[in-house]
């Protein structure tokens, strides 16, 4: 870490921590942190930053946490992880002024409106239409897999503004007011019985042109900013460690540890330990390489691996329970909490893990990414290249 910035950071920290009540309303503290330029130190002055190297942020976060200050991340992860970086990179000064502060304080929660029923792995195959009407846009269509949608104020919306050009080129990116008329959020129930996600229906919903990010037709470029931040967030978020720890406890709780069956399960448990340890070391190596300025493929590798390992570890937990593995807590939606769904039993964690290889990029897509971007293998022949989205959609 260079020394440039130390003085500003320390001064700002001293002022912030000395003047604001650390134990009071987190919103007030976070607002003050924003105003002090300590929200995102690398952002410009006036937009939550000090215009200094991003490396200082970890230092700030540590100091704030050490002093007992609140963190807003957990209450608005998509805002912090994806919305903020996207608005900074592609927003106008007015948009940044309007959106960043309440995002940071958690007064306005964000969600993502990319996925659609017919656009799964093929992210750019968006059907939701946006038609210009004066200085507004009229939105019709459906989005899916929208976590935080039921509580969000703003949605990062990717919509099709021109169906007559190839699919990546006819998209525009909006910041959508989730409270606008014509925007309906419905919970989407999963096989666990919980509803972490939502479906969002647009029926002639209107968005001001002032809430468009970047140019008309430039949506895919903006979306890539959001997505690269999402991938990083997800690879940091998923872990097989809790399931491994649970499996260890469940093995220790077995009363038949000398049976042939238990010996076989122990071998499976130790093998899993080995593979999870290898994955942990790979993540640490990736972090260390990144700290040294060398971005390797370890992030994509870790996501692919963690998914497999979490699926294996949660399954081993159920298997260690034997007959008891046939039981389940309640599937009732009323008994579940949307964002705090928790794993009351290993069986819920097991079922939940089935989605790991689908959400945030299927394992098939991740294999393609490793093969093509890391190893440089040639892409498949593309049959939807150079034809308009409309034509491709009717094939």
């Amino acid at each position: 870490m260079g020394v440039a910035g130390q003085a500003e950071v320390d001064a700002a920290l001293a002022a912030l921590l000395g003047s604001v009540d650390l134990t009071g309303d987190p919103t007030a503290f976070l607002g003050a942190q924003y105003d002090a330029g300590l929200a995102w130190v690398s952002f410009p002055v006036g937009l939550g930053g000090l215009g200094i190297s991003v490396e200082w942020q970890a230092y700030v976060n540590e100091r704030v946490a050490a002093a007992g200050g609140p963190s807003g991340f957990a209450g608005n992860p998509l805002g912090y992880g994806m919305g903020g970086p996207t608005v900074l990179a592609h927003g106008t000064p007015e948009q940044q002024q309007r959106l960043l502060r309440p995002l940071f304080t958690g007064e306005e929660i964000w969600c993502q409106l990319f996925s659609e029923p017919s656009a799964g792995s093929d992210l750019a195959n968006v059907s939701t239409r946006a038609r210009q009407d004066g200085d507004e846009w009229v939105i019709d269509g459906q989005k899916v897999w929208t976590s935080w949608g039921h509580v969000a104020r703003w949605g990062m919306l990717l919509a099709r503004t021109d169906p007559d050009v190839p699919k990546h080129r006819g998209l525009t990116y909006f910041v959508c007011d989730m409270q606008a008329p014509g925007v309906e959020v419905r919970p989407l129930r999963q096989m666990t019985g919980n509803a972490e996600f939502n479906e969002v229906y647009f029926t002639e919903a209107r968005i001001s042109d002032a809430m468009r990010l970047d140019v008309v037709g430039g949506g895919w470029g903006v979306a890539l900013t959001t997505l690269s931040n999402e991938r990083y967030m997800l690879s940091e978020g998923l872990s097989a460690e809790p399931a491994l720890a649970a499996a260890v406890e469940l093995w220790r709780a077995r009363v038949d540890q000398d049976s042939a069956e238990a010996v076989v399960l122990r071998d499976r448990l130790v093998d899993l330990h080995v593979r999870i340890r290898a994955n942990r070391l790979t993540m640490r190596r990736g972090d260390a390489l990144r700290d040294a300025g060398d971005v390797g493929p370890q992030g994509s590798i870790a996501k692919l691996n963690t998914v497999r390992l979490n699926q294996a570890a949660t399954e081993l937990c159920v298997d260690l329970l034997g007959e008891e593995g046939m039981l389940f807590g309640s599937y009732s939606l009323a008994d579940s909490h949307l964002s705090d769904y928790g794993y009351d039993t290993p069986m819920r964690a097991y079922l939940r893990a089935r989605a790991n290889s689908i959400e945030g990029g299927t394992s098939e897509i991740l294999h393609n990414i490793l093969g093509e971007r890391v190893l440089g293998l040639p892409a498949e022949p593309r049959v939807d290249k150079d034809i308009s989205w409309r034509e491709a959609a009717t094939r």
Partner: protein
Amino acid sequence: MGSTQPVLLRPEHDELRTSVRKFLADTSPEPAVRAVMETSQGYDSNVWRRACAELGLAALTVPEQYGGSGYSFVEAGVVLEESGRVLWPSPFFATTVLATTALLASGDTSAAADFLPAIASGGLRATVATSGALHAAPTSDGWQVTGASAYVVDGHTAELILVLAETETGLSLFAVDGHASGLTREAQSTMDLTRKLAKLRFDAAPARLIGSAGSGTDLRERVLAVAAVGLAAEQVGGAQRVLELTVDYVKERKQFGRAIGSFQAVKHRCADMLVDVESARSVMVHALWAVAADSDELAEDAAVAKVFCSDAFLSCAGAAIQLHGGIGFTWEHPAHLFFKRAKSGQLMFGDPVHHRRLLGDLLEL
């Protein structure tokens, strides 16, 4: 391995299959299954009554002298496979696969004469409690059973409960009335909502000894072997169904301008599902004939069926979720119902590791 045992079903089984499939399509389409699975009873009384009246399902494997149709377990296998295809929640498994098997295997003609005609008519739903710690003692008033047993299929609704309990002369089979005094029954919260399990507590519940005292160990082995084979038939039906659902979906679903089934990652996984399904079917059909013929190698064939068909079904059901993408993870899509049935069945009546240990013993390894 009995190499003379058949590996194919017979043409007449196709007729049975057709009528069962049609009946289930009419009476138990997916919405009906979903409605029934949310009930605590766990089956539709009307549908069961019709299945007994129109198809004679409860009478299928009951010998003619007890008012049944006297078919073999192969015919039961056809019904189970169709049942597994649609996850039909019904008393068939517990009553026919478990209880009828136990009564017939007990050699107790008096008990058979007392219970089987009622079972055959559809008027008596029964089950067997195969696990748990139970003991029975004779009193002046007859036998009484005490202890607990869990994971009893349909245990909370069965009218007749056969239990395996320890006695002074060894493990023995007893009949306990579903409403007997001293019996408390509690439905368990199951991962697989389409098959209900219950926990039963017996507190000096009056019981009738079935067969001779001490014959329970052999009986238990027979019932568990037949249960494994019956489960395998359901599993093949389920695996075949998720393969069909998946193949249909990946032919239709387009991504990047192509049906996703044209991508090798998808296509090859479907091919692996096919390999699993076809192999599981071979194992299952062979094992059905082993039950019907009371083969010496039934114990081996049953263990093989339990290991192979459980694993194959689970693997197919998992692939089905993955290949459907996000939609396959939703409550609304049927994939999860098959996945839960597959995982539960794998753990029921002994998991694969246990059955491999048993099989290793049988193979003298």
